[in-house]
């Protein structure tokens, strides 16, 4: 029989009353910070109670993003000294910063870690598509966190605006492309611009460099008569729509991404598209085919009336698409399209569970003749319209229209409206007001399905406002499959609207 026992003598000479090493607590720093690359200086001063400044040595380190993992953080010292004044000259991404306070006499240290979200001047904010006084296409950018507007980005970066009137703009998330410096595959949020008769460009929102245009998007040569209409992201794919058809690619990062992909696309096929693109089932998108005059799914199917449908039908062969939207309410998804039929009227087409579930002729409603229209994306089945500069809200469930008041709406003619949101970061009703050659944008938070209080953001620019889109960098798995889970789970809301 063997007996195992152990005993230990407590001989703590490590943390003593003299060195108080156990008390080195670094405090006074935020948990999360953000900075704009090549524009910001990160200034922070920690607090370590109970120690004189000359007793401690302060070092600041960084990991993540363009650096390695935490285990190697000591390789990346960014600052020495208690007061951090670090010029953030980093690639955009998510980093972690470590502040380490070391007791000079004993060498023992305490540390604290916080996140640093680095964006670029153009990577997180609202892009404004506008038409210049001479009928060309230009972009403004509003950084809503800093409340700073940058005007005429294309002229600023390329010396001139794009030749031709603006036709459309869409964010393209995790767009694969080749890094021109390293000649390797990478991805970033792009901004697709359609302009002129049949031109387009996709700009990298990190640095406004040109990702793709007519000469480079396809492996084949783009046909002269191809008219690009739109690009859109859903789930793990980016889709492209033109008059020639549609095509798609996997988004960058994530499980399905290939580190070898160039971001070029195959030639589009199937039914031609249009600028009217909308959600469908999270994996695929719905769209209006201008060439075939029907509603299509990006998997190649025509969207049909549900089994047993006996209601009003739209004479699609004569219809023109007017607007489209997507309402989400705790797992209930309703996609809608508005069509005008000349000499007939306006139709509201509602898609649910991948079919046309209902069609309504709109007659008495202001929505029936409004030009400025927007849908409510989150938690509300409404369609907003503007008639004679008055805002109205049409309830899709109750089929009732209500006039709404808007606080401090800028003076001028309302020419643009959209419900823009991004996950839970914000949910704004964006109203664009035109005054001759100048526009003003007012962004309102929403409550109870209507604009609430004073505008959260207001900014101005020159030109004729056409559209706003929100851009933000996305990383490999964050978010996972944008807009897919809204169709799968009650608790998952859409990531962004189309």
């Amino acid at each position, binding site marked *: 029989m063997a007996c195992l026992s152990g005993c230990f003598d407590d001989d703590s000479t490590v943390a003593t009353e003299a060195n108080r090493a156990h008390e080195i607590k670094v405090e006074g720093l935020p948990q999360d910070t953000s900075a704009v690359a090549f524009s910001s200086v990160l200034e922070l001063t920690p607090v370590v109670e109970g120690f004189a400044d000359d007793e401690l040595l302060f070092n600041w380190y960084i990991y993540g993003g363009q650096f390695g993992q935490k285990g190697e953080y000591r390789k990346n010292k960014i600052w020495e000294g208690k007061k951090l004044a670090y010029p953030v000259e980093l690639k955009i991404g998510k980093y972690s910063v470590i502040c380490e306070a070391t007791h000079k006499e004993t060498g023992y240290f305490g540390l604290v870690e916080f996140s640093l979200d680095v964006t670029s001047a153009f990577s997180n904010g609202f892009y404004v598509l506008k038409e210049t006084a001479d009928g060309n296409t230009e972009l403004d950018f509003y950084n809503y966190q800093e409340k700073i507007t940058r005007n005429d980005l294309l002229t600023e970066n390329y010396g001139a605006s794009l030749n031709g009137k603006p036709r459309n703009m869409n964010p393209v998330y995790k767009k694969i492309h080749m890094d021109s410096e390293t000649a390797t595959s990478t991805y970033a949020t792009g901004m697709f611009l359609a302009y002129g008769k049949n031109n387009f460009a996709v700009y990298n929102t990190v640095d406004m460099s040109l990702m793709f245009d007519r000469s480079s998007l*396809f*492996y*084949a040569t783009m046909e002269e008569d191809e008219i690009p209409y739109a690009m859109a992201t859903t789930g793990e794919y980016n889709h492209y729509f033109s008059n020639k058809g549609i095509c798609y*690619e996997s988004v960058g990062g994530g499980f*399905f991404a*290939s580190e070898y992909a*160039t971001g*070029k696309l*195959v030639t589009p096929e199937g039914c031609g598209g249009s600028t009217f693109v909308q959600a469908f089932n999270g994996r695929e998108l719905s769209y209006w085919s201008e060439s075939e005059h029907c509603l299509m799914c990006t998997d190649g199917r025509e969207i049909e009336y549900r089994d047993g449908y006996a209601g009003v039908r739209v004479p699609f062969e004569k219809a023109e698409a007017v607007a489209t939207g997507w309402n989400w309410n705790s797992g209930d998804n309703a996609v809608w399209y508005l069509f005008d039929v000349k000499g007939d009227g306006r139709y509201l087409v509602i898609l649910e569970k991948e079919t046309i579930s209902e069609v309504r002729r709109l007659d008495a409603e202001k929505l029936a003749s409004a030009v400025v229209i927007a849908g409510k994306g989150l938690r509300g089945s409404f369609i907003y319209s503007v008639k004679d500069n008055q805002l109205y809200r049409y309830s899709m469930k109750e089929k009732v229209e209500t006039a709404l008041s808007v606080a401090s709406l800028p003076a001028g003619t309302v020419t643009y409206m959209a419900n823009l949101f991004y996950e839970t970061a914000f949910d704004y009703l964006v109203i664009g007001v035109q005054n001759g050659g100048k526009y003003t944008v007012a962004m309102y938070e929403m409550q109870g399905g209507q604009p609430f209080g004073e505008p959260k953001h207001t900014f101005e620019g020159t030109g004729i406002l056409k559209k706003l889109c929100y851009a933000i960098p996305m990383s490999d798995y964050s978010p996972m499959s944008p807009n897919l889970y809204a169709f799968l789970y009650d608790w998952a809301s859409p990531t962004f609207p189309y």
Partner: protein
Amino acid sequence: MLLATACEKDLPKFSDEECMLTFHYGDGLTTAGVKDGMGSRSHSFKLNSAEGQMRDTVWLRVNTMGKLSADSRPLALMQVEDTTQGVVNAVAGKHYVAFDEPSLATLYQVPGDSAAVKVPVVVLRDASLEAEGDVVLKITFRDNGWFKAGYPEFATYTLTISDRLTKPEAWDKFSLNSYFGTYGPQKHELMIKWTEKSWDDEYISTLFYEYFQGYFAPKDEAYIAYLGQWFAERLEEENEERLANPEIGKVWEEEDGPVDFTPVANGY
């Protein structure tokens, strides 16, 4: 209270003197994992050898079972008849160099202290291959007193010898039917001619990567899809020219119908 004791037990030492050989079908493969199509390949002189080259070598990986030896040990291959209906069996001296050819003896050896070796099968470009079609060489191990055949699941290797384009292993491995339609030798020849790429196992492998254990995807999905479109368009153009040419008057054809690049759903 813990009671810990230790004891030793004498285990019998491995004493089986019998040594066996198996063909290597794949890394980490167990007998239960063997599927049809494993343990076989084809050698096409048209695809794999230079023009005018009349003999070539196919190397097969062989593993030993049993004790190692510090000295090299001879191994012996032998042909077994493939009785599958329609199969024409290869003839030694005509389609391949006989395994007991003295000049190859030094190559049919398991080196000392080795448990694996690559052995050659020297194939011959007989005129009958092009004129009459492929032949099959089914190989196993002859008991030569040093080694005998091991697990039956790994004891044979089937080599198809051809002088026409044969379907590369990579075609099925990477499901090229999904991109270019069902394989056909005429289609294969056109792909090689139009792109000036070899479209053999080696080239096809450069277009794909393993994204998960045993699962492959194109390195650039859009590029492969574009190739499929491009092949189809080129075929359409040439078919129009051929139909318009009274000396030809027909489209490109396989044995069983026109060449068609339409992708097959799910690769089948």
